[in-house]
């Protein structure tokens, strides 16, 4: 239990640090560490597939993409940011933590343990047989993502 609490605290702290840091590289690394901790939590909660996805895709692949993008972009002129941004987030974060603590304490006893459902089975069975329509939706999301990249990184033709 102590390890779980330590992992959760680490997850919250690194996630908050990713937002607070102004240096994008540090923020990307904090996010990667947060994802790594989340992946470990998934493993410990007996969800190895999602843990593996979280660590390989979010902590690995996406971090590589972030760092590559940061390396390829140049620092432009200083963007003026409202000073309110530096205290609004920490304030909101603390208020959220306090509220979250009280709400979750009230809810913990009331959420029953999940009963056996027809949607149990191996990961593959659930994905391919139980949630088939989700896959159609995921194809739609991938389509939308690919088309968005094609549309937003297009070069204008000479005749247009």
């Amino acid at each position, binding site marked *: 239990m102590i390890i779980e609490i330590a992992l959760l605290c680490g997850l919250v702290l690194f996630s908050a640090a990713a937002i607070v840091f102004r240096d994008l590289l540090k923020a990307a690394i904090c996010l990667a560490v947060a994802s790594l901790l989340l992946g470990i939590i998934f493993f410990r909660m007996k969800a190895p597939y999602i843990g593996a996805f979280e660590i390989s895709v979010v902590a690995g692949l996406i971090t590589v993409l972030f760092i590559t993008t940061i390396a390829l972009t140049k620092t432009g002129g200083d963007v003026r940011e409202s000073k309110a941004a530096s205290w609004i987030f920490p304030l909101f974060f603390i208020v959220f933590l306090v509220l979250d603590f009280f*709400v979750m304490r*009230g*809810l913990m006893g*009331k*959420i*029953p343990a*999940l*009963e056996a*459902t027809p*949607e149990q089975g191996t990961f593959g069975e659930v994905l391919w*047989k*139980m*949630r*088939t*329509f*989700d896959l*159609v*939706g*995921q*194809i*739609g*999301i991938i*389509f*939308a*993502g690919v*088309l*968005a990249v*094609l*549309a*937003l990184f*297009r070069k*204008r*033709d000479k005749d*247009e």
Partner: protein
Amino acid sequence: MVFLFVALPLVVAGILPLVGKISKKVLPDLLANSVFVVLLALVFFEARSLAGQDAAIEQLFWLGEPLNIRLMLDGFSLFMLFAVSLVGFAISLFSIDYMDHYGSKANFYALFLVMTAGMNGLLLVTDLFQIYIFLEVAAVASYALVAFGLGHDELEASFKYLMLSAVASAFLLAGIVIIFGVTGGLDFETVSQGLQTLDSRYLVGFCAAFFILGFGLKAALVPFHAWLPDAHPSAPAPISAALSGLLIKVSGVYALARVFLNVFGLTPALSTVLMYLGIISMVIAALLALGQTDIKRMLAYSSISQVGYIVLGIGLGTPLGILGGLFHLFNHALAKSLLFLNSGSLQMSTGTRNLDEMGGLGKRMPVTAGTTLIGSLSIAGVPPLNGFWSKLIIIVALVQAKQWAFAVIAVLVSVLTLWYYLIIQRKAFFGKLNERWSDVREAPFWMTASTVLLGLLCIATGIFFAATVNSWIRPAADSLVKGVQTMLGSLGF
């Protein structure tokens, strides 16, 4: 056949970028418009086969094996599919001429079709998690469409929209996770059964708050509206029309109504919250619209205000209130799409969206002026146009339910609406023609054809409102009035 509502736009979206390599304009135009004609024909076909039934479930098979794809078609989803296909067709017709100067037309149509597939999927699903997935399909496509012009404003608006939409999705996902945790299922029937037997009003209230926040952000209800006045004006005009006319209604109002009326069941507390959200949106957005000089921004605020009417009607929860809300949804989809398309015609002809710089354009653009007048009067609720009947039904429903204060405010906001639409008319079309616009010409053929079609539909729906209500709106309202019973047992799960 019902699966075609999702599969057809997705498949055509997949081949459109390839078609775009062969033909830059004609084939993409033809393909995209054909898809909407087929979807419209499918709606009428399904309406015939659904006649007399409350709902139908389509179970898909693959090589004789049943797939776990079950799609539900009832009066409410059929009505929404009709609205999406009809308005989608008008938008796609308008894009033939309008999108020429943006370039990459095939990609534009492909994204628009993915957005349509996402909306259609959301209208047919029977599962909370699938609502989330198809909401994201439509949303991801719409982020790219808002930024399609690639200008600074477009990219900034798209980013703002993406950020707030991500917050909405996070709240929805959190709500879905808790519901799954307490009911052990995700499909509507299991969840509504589970919630009825669950002895924890506190927990259900907590989830309801998450859903209101999520769907409220998607529907841009005040105070969750900050993204809409930036995103909708920045997008190309056909997409502004699709976002305001369709997307906020499907991913906001439809999903909200489906979840709260058919799955959670509308409690008095929930009804009160929805009615207050509706009335606050109506009033604040109407007041904000008054001060705008950018025509598209004014129309965007007007969308928030009119969605307020729809949520007020549905939130009231009486059969007449729901009927009025849904009828207003349809009428607003027609009229607001028309107005956004016309704002695109104005912007294309004059190069500006600033109402103060326009003036006297009615003489140069008579069709655009005429159809804008029809759309404006319709939304403002002037008889005999369609918007009048839907607002009248909502107000009568409020009076019947003895909600006098809400009824009076609804009438007053209608007056405010007429006021800011008259400002558009006066500043853009009436008065002396500004010399700058002496060479301005009417919009090209397909753009005017599309707006004339929508204008005629506004008039026809107003004149034949009884037929429209009986054939499309009443079956939709009945599905919602039956509440959770629609999901429990009556569908033959």
